[in-house]
């Protein structure tokens, strides 16, 4: 059973975002890390980059595949998780916490309401 924290919003493409004021912290879900298994490399966006919701802006690589990560929200990348760059396994061990990928200064505060709720995301992944 994948963990689906209730304080997050979700994208269909298996990213989560935690919104506080004008900032969105983004990572991939427990379901996603479970599908990927061992993450061996993470390529993070450049700080200062502007992204729109749905843009591919990071890459998470497992032994077998490279997966594009799409920003669920629009804005400017203000911080990236340097720890995940040196220890990619954090994405597997703590995908909603220490395995966060990047932070976005939101350009559209209402945008996150269009994302999936925890219930909707759990339904999408079939409660698996």
């Amino acid at each position: 059973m994948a963990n689906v924290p209730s304080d997050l919003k979700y994208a269909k493409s298996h990213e989560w975002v935690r919104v506080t004021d004008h900032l969105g912290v983004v990572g991939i879900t427990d379901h996603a890390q479970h599908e990927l298994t061992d993450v061996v490399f993470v390529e993070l966006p450049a700080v200062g980059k502007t992204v729109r919701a749905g843009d591919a802006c990071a890459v998470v690589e497992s032994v077998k595949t490279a997966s594009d990560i799409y920003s669920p929200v629009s804005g400017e990348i203000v911080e990236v998780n340097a720890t995940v760059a040196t220890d990619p396994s954090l994405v597997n061990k703590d995908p909603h916490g220490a395995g966060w990928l990047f932070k976005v200064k939101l350009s559209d505060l209402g945008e996150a309401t269009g994302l999936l709720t925890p219930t909707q995301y759990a339904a999408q992944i079939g409660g698996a």
Partner: protein
Amino acid sequence: MLKRTPLFASHQEMGGKLIEFGGWELPVQYTSITDEHLAVRQAAGIFDISHMGEVFIQGPEAEAFLNQTLTNDARKLPVGGGQYTLMCNELGGVIDDLYAYRLGLAEYLLIINASRITEDVSWLEGRLAQFTGRAGVALRNASDVTAAAAIQGPRVAEFIDACFPGPFAGGTPVLRAADLRKNQVARTSLSGAEVWISRTGYTGEDGFEVVSPAEVIVEIWGRIFEAGLPYGLKPAGLGARDTLRTEVCYPLYGHELDDHTTPIEAGLGFFVSWDKGDFTGRPILAHQKAKGTTKRLVAFKMTDRSAPPRPHYPIWSSGPQAALLGEVASGTQSPSLGIGIGMGYVPTALAKVSTPLEIEIRGRRAPAVVVSKPIYRKAD
């Protein structure tokens, strides 16, 4: 409709993540590729290789036919011996790489790649039709009725005998499976079926491969699990199979080998026999051996932390006048070494160990270096 091996239900029961592989539905992993890879390096792993092909070749002219069709020398095989060999076309291009076993005085078994069964059998039949001694050769493609499993790792020899109590009545005369030496094969039976077991593998570890009629492979798989679990045996999928063989630089058809690449270019000249007489492709291979080749397969390692190199990523030379050299044939993050590794073809002049290279990953070039093969070696 994808093909399934007789072990399909076992893979489902064990939580195998099933994917499509060359028309087959097989597990890429059960828990994780890294987990399974390390299990094989440290203890034991078992792979379903039933999708591979099995061709029996018998008769008084079988040896001569094989020597005209394959690159290695079948005369070197004692009864119960096996050898790695290649099958080339008239231009020296590799049709397949395979193992040839001598099961009896005039009986051979070829183990061929799953992806090449149709091409190989068609080619063999074509060669046989031209072979002057064809009346003395019988060829039988048993791929559809034969299954196989590979059990690999340093601890396998400790439990393999519990799976196959014997007796052993063909091939190398042994009392126990664990008495087989590398490349030897012996015949035993299980539930009335003929089972061949060899001390061979595709991982760089000690291990065994078992070939049986399809009907008994599920029983074999079960017996191996029962005996091997206390030793740390894990089921291993295609993902680990690929990372294990890449670490030791074993070629994979369709990556390092194809029908416009020769064994000499692939660095497999050791498996070409020059003193056994003519064989298909010999003239071109002999020319390449004497004059050299334009391209050569190298192994490389990434020199800095980077995304893993993957098949088809461009390979560049290093420095100010960097040139595009070729592309990655096989590449992955090495679970044993924790760094990106791979193999690819480069111009022969750059095929020397320590030559710096750059691998283009998503538009950016990352530094790498040519290393000797195998890339992973067990510490002595």
